[in-house]
Structures are given as C-alpha cells and as structure tokens.
C-alpha cells in the first residue's frame, strides 16, 4: 500500500489536537488526526458526543466546559481533517513517517498503517503520576481518573465503599462526581501538606484573574464537607490490604493508625506530561522542579528541539483543557507559517488575541501548582517492599541495592533488574525510578535522567512489524 502524505499529522484528539486541526484546516493544510482512543475529546472530554446525544441529563450535569467542548468537537468533525480513531502510534521515524496499528482486532487491512508528514504535532496529553504505595497492585486499587473514564465512556460507577487518597484538583473533582452518582465514599485521605494553602496564598491575586476556577474549587470542597465524607488530614502512609482483592485500607494520619474497609481505593498524585513520543524522537527535555516531572523544551510556538516536531497541550506542560486548546491553535498557526500557507505577520496577528487569552487562562496555575505541589514522600516510597515496576515486579529495595552496586542511571538499573522492561515500557515506573536513584545518590532527578525510550512505544506483533510499509 502507498504511504499517504499529509502537511500535518496531529497525534491526539483532545482539546489541543482538535483545536490544532480546526486552525490548520482553516489555513488550507492537509491534515490527519490519529487517536488511540475510540472517540474524540481526549480524556477530559471522553465520549462527549455520545454523552450529549444519549445521556443528556448526565452531560448537562458535567457543566459548562462540556457544552463548550461539544462545540469544539463539532468544529473538529466538520473541519475536513482526516480522522482515524482507535489507532495506536508505535513508531515515528526521523523522516516523519508515523507507524500505527489498529487496537481492535480484524481492522488491519482497512486502511494504511504508515503515514508521512511534513510536520507532526504531538498532542497526546497527560497521564496520572504513579503513586506507589504498599499493595497498590491489588485488584480494586486504581488510578483516580480510571473511574471517571468508566463513568463517561461506559456508564459504569463504583459499587460498595470507596476510599480516595492523594491530592490535586482532579481528586476533588472526581470525588464530587462520585457523590453526584450516588457512590458512598467512606474516606478521603488528603495527602496534601497542611501548610500548602498558606504557601500558595501569595499566588492568589493572580489566580483571581480567572475566578471561575476558584469558585469551582470552593464549590467542590463545600460539597465534600456537607456530604459528610470523612476527610483525613496529615496522612503519613497508606497501605492497600487484601489477598485476591482489596479489602481494607490502613493509613497513618496525625490522629494515629486507622483501618477502613474498602472495595475500591482510588489514588491520585496529580498528572504529568505523557513524554513517550517526544522521548522517542529525541526531543530535548527539562526537569520541571516545582511539579517534579520532565517536559519537552518548547519555544513560544510549541516547537521542540527536533525539526518538524511540535507539541501542544498537556504533554508539553500540564495546564488544563483551556490552555491546551489555545496552545493547539498557536501551534497550528506556526505550522501553517512554516509550510508557507501563512505569512509571519499574519501568524503573529492571529496569535496575539489567542496569547492574551492564554495568559489569562494561565493566571491561576502558580496558585494551583503551589497548592498541590507534589510531595516527594508520595513519590519515593519509604517502605522498601513497595512495588515500583508493576510489570516486572521490582520493588524500592531492589532499586536502591542496584544503585549501591554502582548503577547510577535509569538505563543501568533497568539493565540489571528489569525495571521498565515490561509491557508498559516504563510509563508506570520511569518517574519513580529516577526519583529513587536521585534520592539514593542525594542529587536531583534532573541529573539522573530518564529511561531511554525506543520504538515500539506500544507493543506491535512481529507480523505487523514485517508487514508495515
């Protein structure tokens, strides 16, 4: 099969990807959007079209953001970009060839599996920061956003008693959504330090430029308080207990040790950029100390250090759906300029109003980022038997011992004890691994580095590999 060529290939159809598609199509570019999820909207607006059409009362409950996003999805669907969903990118070559596979079986012969681009925009969003605690591999312990995905994509909600643990705006949001859906929350273990609000206060004036976020946040807190959910503060440790399934959650708070029964434990420690593709492509990354993650180094238009590769949205820096959408527009304008479809002055002119809005939308970030600053104690587990690499079952103690053996980088540790060698290809352990090595050597993760990412960034069968064009 011939390899189809595009001006721009966008990976991801969340707010950033959809916005970029709309704007780049507006400049007459030939655009392809690839997404591994079955529907457009990203994780934040997952399954939004179906929700609006078939579950309208629930859709309305999700708030104004959703009705706005629904408009964006409609514009995206009508913009004339080719859109292929349910397709996973497993390799991008320097010549800007993107290789994909279909997720669902029996689809391979229906469309080409390689595409060539003049420019590539990576808009794959963020992922939850892994929160390794003892017992977190037990069935019944899940990432907090997993229940949100289940609710929105499948109309499935938790049954029985639910414990939430961690910190961050998403934890509060999901807690309130669960209450709305009639789910019983038996405890909320707030791991945020008690002085966090005090620390964040200096950033409050700036955050007041977008009061709607603060109002929303206050509303969620109020709802939690009035619903009678027991909120525990000063959490020092959390352990998931059970044999075949989670049964109990044991935690130590400022009030001592407690154990609560639980059918589901939802963990959340903020979100971090999904850097698998930018790492694969060898883009330069930097350590963002305040949020303790790596992000690709970008210029003001979203260009990475690798020619032809740009980034928009949360996979550049976690900033939320509005900022992501705006950064998608900006990256698309720059792409149009680079391909000669738009003059530099026109690009700047069109970008200036977007930038003004962008600045406003970013105003609350310093407040939120300080309020929910990631705590090292929840990233580097104290208990040495805590699993770090869930795939290859490597714990904290083994990693520390290997560092003491002289393995001072993630790749060396990986080569010795297989952490990061499993199916998830390091997505679930790479950050923790770097943090533990840094902790053991008493240096910054910035100086430790990150696991080397190579293709395939998602598994592909040998048959699919040899038949790729």
């Amino acid at each position, binding site marked *: 099969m011939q390899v189809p060529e595009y001006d721009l290939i966008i990976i991801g159809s969340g707010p950033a990807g959809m916005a970029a598609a709309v704007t780049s199509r507006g400049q007459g570019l030939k655009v392809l959007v690839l997404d591994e999820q079955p529907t457009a909207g990203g994780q934040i607006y997952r399954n939004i079209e179906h929700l609006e059409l078939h579950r309208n009362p629930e859709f309305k409950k999700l708030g104004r953001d959703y009705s706005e996003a629904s408009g964006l999805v409609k514009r995206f669907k009508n913009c004339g970009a080719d859109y292929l969903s349910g397709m996973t990118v497993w390799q991008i070559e320097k010549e800007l060839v993107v290789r994909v596979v279909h997720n669902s079986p029996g689809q391979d012969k229906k469309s080409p599996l390689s595409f060539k681009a003049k420019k590539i925009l990576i808009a794959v969003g963020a992922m939850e920061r892994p929160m390794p605690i003892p017992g977190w591999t*037990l069935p019944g312990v899940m990432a907090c956003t997993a229940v949100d995905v289940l609710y929105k994509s499948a109309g499935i909600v938790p049954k029985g008693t639910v414990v939430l643990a961690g910190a961050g705006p998403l934890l509060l949001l999901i807690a309130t959504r669960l209450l709305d859906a009639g789910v019983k929350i038996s405890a909320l273990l707030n791991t945020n330090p008690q002085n966090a609000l005090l620390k964040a206060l200096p950033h409050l004036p700036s955050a007041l430029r977008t009061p709607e976020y603060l109002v929303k946040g206050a509303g969620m807190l109020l709802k939690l308080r009035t619903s009678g959910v027991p909120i525990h503060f000063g959490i020092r440790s959390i352990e998931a207990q059970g044999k075949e399934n989670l049964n109990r959650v044991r935690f130590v708070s400022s009030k001592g040790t407690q154990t609560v029964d639980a059918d*589901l434990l939802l963990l959340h420690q903020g979100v971090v950029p999904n850097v698998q593709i930018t790492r694969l492509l060898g883009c330069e990354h930097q350590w963002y100390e305040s949020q303790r993650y790596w992000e690709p180094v970008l210029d003001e238009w979203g260009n990475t250090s690798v020619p032809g590769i740009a980034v928009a949205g949360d996979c550049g820096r976690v900033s939320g759906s509005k900022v992501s959408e705006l950064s998608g527009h900006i990256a698309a304008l720059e792409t149009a300029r680079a391909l000669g479809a738009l003059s530099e002055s026109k690009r700047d002119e069109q970008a200036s109003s977007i930038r003004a809005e962008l600045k406003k939308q970013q105003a609350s970030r310093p407040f939120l980022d300080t309020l929910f600053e990631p705590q090292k104690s929840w990233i580097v587990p104290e208990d040495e038997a805590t699993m770090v690499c869930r795939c290859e079952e490597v714990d904290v103690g083994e990693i520390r011992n290997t560092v003491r053996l002289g393995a001072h980088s993630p790749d060396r540790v990986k080569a010795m004890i297989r952490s990061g060698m499993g199916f998830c290809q390091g997505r679930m352990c790479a950050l923790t691994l770097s943090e533990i090595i840094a902790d053991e050597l008493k240096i910054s993760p910035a100086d430790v580095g990150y696991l080397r990412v190579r293709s395939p960034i998602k598994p592909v069968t040998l048959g699919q590999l040899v038949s790729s064009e």
Partner: protein
Amino acid sequence: MFKKLPQNGEKVSIDFEGKRLETVTGQTVAAALLGSGEMLFRESAVTGQPRSVYCMMGVCFECLLEIDGKPNQQSCMILVQEGMKIRRQQRPIMENHASA
C-alpha cells in the same frame, strides 16, 4: 466493584471464561467486564499475583487479557465485538518457574 447505569447502544454478548456477558457496542472489553462485576483480569507475568485494571487509558498495561486466542491484549483499548471469546491472562508456563 462496579455497577452499570442504564446502558445505551446495540446489545452485544461476549464470552468471558465460558460465561456469557451482556454489554453494548462502543464499550471497551475492560469496561464491559468491570460493569459485569468482574475484577480479576490476569496473573502477573513474574510471580502470578492477581491483577486488574489500573488506569483505563492505555498507560499501565494491567488490563491484559487473552482475546480471541491472542494473549496480552490491552482490554481498555479494544472495543467489544459480538461473540468475542475472552479469558484471563495466565502467566506463561516456564520449566524453571520456581526460580523465575
């Protein structure tokens, strides 16, 4: 554990470990199983621990299942199809398992 809210969509039935489960089109295999009350998805590859869905968005690879005879399929990314035969992912059989 999970429960289903009223479902929209065309009815689909799938086979999980010999049991017939009813679900609807547009759902992922992982969601269909969880919605039917199934929690145990697989044995971990190294020591055979029980494992289940963790992230639901294609990151963690905990939801691996054997689907229509193919092992280690990422069930949160695969949509249900009528008649799909699904089994828990077992740990591969190695002669030297005790020492693995």
